[in-house]
């Protein structure tokens, strides 16, 4: 049972480049989430999705784009990466009653 996976686990990119972080879950959970984790800020919600083709912005969505054409996948795209987007990114899916399950994270560095 793979659960929820993220790829790549580590990524270094340059300012201005487009980057896509992948998230895949095997549970068929309806809800999926993207967070970023930064020192002193904890986890902040970027985007979430209630089902395929239904997405909504979170607290820090500027500069990010998501899509959800299939229930199991929820890619996050940085359209033009900036240094302030250097962070650890976590994908999560929700089973029921708020309980979320997290992926292992992607550490992104923007130079």
């Amino acid at each position, binding site marked *: 049972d793979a659960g929820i996976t993220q790829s790549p686990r580590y990524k270094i990119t340059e300012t201005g480049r487009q980057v896509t972080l992948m998230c895949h879950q095997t549970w068929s959970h309806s*809800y999926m*989430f993207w967070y970023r984790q930064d020192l*002193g*800020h*904890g*986890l902040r*919600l970027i985007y*979430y999705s209630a089902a395929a083709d239904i997405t*909504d912005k*979170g607290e820090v969505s500027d500069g990010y784009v998501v899509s959800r054409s299939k229930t199991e996948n929820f890619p996050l795209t940085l359209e033009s990466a900036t240094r302030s987007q250097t962070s650890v990114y*976590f994908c*999560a899916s*929700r089973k029921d*009653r*708020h*309980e*979320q*399950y*997290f*992926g*292992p*994270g992607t550490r992104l560095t923007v130079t």
Partner: protein
Amino acid sequence: AQSVTQPDIHITVSEGASLELRCNYSYGATPYLFWYVQSPGQGLQLLLKYFSGDTLVQGIKGFEAEFKRSQSSFNLRKPSVHWSDAAEYFCAVGVIYGGSQGNLIFGKGTKLSVKP
């Protein structure tokens, strides 16, 4: 607006000592409450959750938490800490009403160090 406060950024305890991590929330109704643990380089793992009923909830790895409505608190406890408990701990509250129903609001975390 809902919020979660973890007053302690960093706590150090000796192995074998008891532990209590504090969490306070701001919410108008009965909240859904969670504690997650994050080991270095890992994702978050659910330790325990409270939805309703018994205010003392048991979780994995020997952790428990007590919901106190009068104090708006949901503190995490463990009677005897092991070196493997060194990690960062996050308290979270579930959004029950409104457009973001079902989402979680996280505290900023408490880093636990364990002295041998």
